[in-house]
């Protein structure tokens, strides 16, 4: 195991968990290797941490925790690029923006999820331009909406 200094501190890197973004991600085009870190104190927020730059760590989350009926459409080209063979290969994460001093205005980018193939270690931030999702959904509103959906569902089935 190799030790790497990152924005969230020194990490021991398990090679198998490194995710390679062949084209970088928008805004960080020159960075290739990242790792998804789960920290007890920030869970359910995870960190997409750059192994190339000690200044870059992006908060991400399982989007279904925020929007229960979220749908991701992965285009054929991405399936090829990431060598996705089945659902079990996939890990989907969405980028969070948490404004300093104003957590209530936290937003989630549902238009451009991070798609990771856990098996091949390849990742990409895809852009679902015509999905109807935006890049700045307010998290508090989405949680409210999801709760309502869950409640309606349990009332209808129960």
């Amino acid at each position, binding site marked *: 195991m190799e030790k790497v200094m990152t924005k969230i501190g020194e990490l021991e890197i398990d090679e198998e968990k490194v995710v390679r973004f062949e084209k970088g991600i*928008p*805004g960080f085009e020159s960075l290739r290797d990242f790792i998804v870190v789960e920290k007890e104190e920030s869970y*359910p927020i995870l960190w997409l941490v750059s192994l190339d730059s000690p*200044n870059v760590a992006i*908060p991400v989350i399982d989007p279904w925790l925020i929007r229960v009926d979220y749908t991701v459409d992965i285009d054929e080209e991405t399936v090829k690029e990431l060598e996705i063979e089945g659902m079990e290969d996939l890990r989907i994460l969405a980028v969070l923006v948490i404004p300093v001093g104003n957590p*209530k205005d936290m937003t989630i980018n549902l238009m*451009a999820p991070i798609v990771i193939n856990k098996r091949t270690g390849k990742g990409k931030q895809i*852009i679902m331009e015509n999905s109807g999702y935006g890049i700045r959904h307010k998290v508090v509103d989405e*949680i409210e909406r999801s709760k309502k959906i869950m409640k309606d569902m349990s009332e209808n089935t129960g």
Partner: protein
Amino acid sequence: MLVLSRRINESIIIGDDIEIKILKVEGKTVKIGISAPKSVKIYRKEIYDSIKRENIEAMKSELTEGVREILGGVRDEDRGQR
């Protein structure tokens, strides 16, 4: 930047397999048709730029007690399912 003038229904070819055709001009709006292989990703520049901005903003995020409060509910529910 290469600048070319084109009339309606005229095209530009880029490389071997990308064609860009001017379909309609109306006031300040130009309608453009693009034929390209599927592997070529085409986005409106402002969408790509806004995702770029969001990622950079995300990097500046601050994790505070308030964040944990907002996500407290989803955290517990999720843990329950594990």
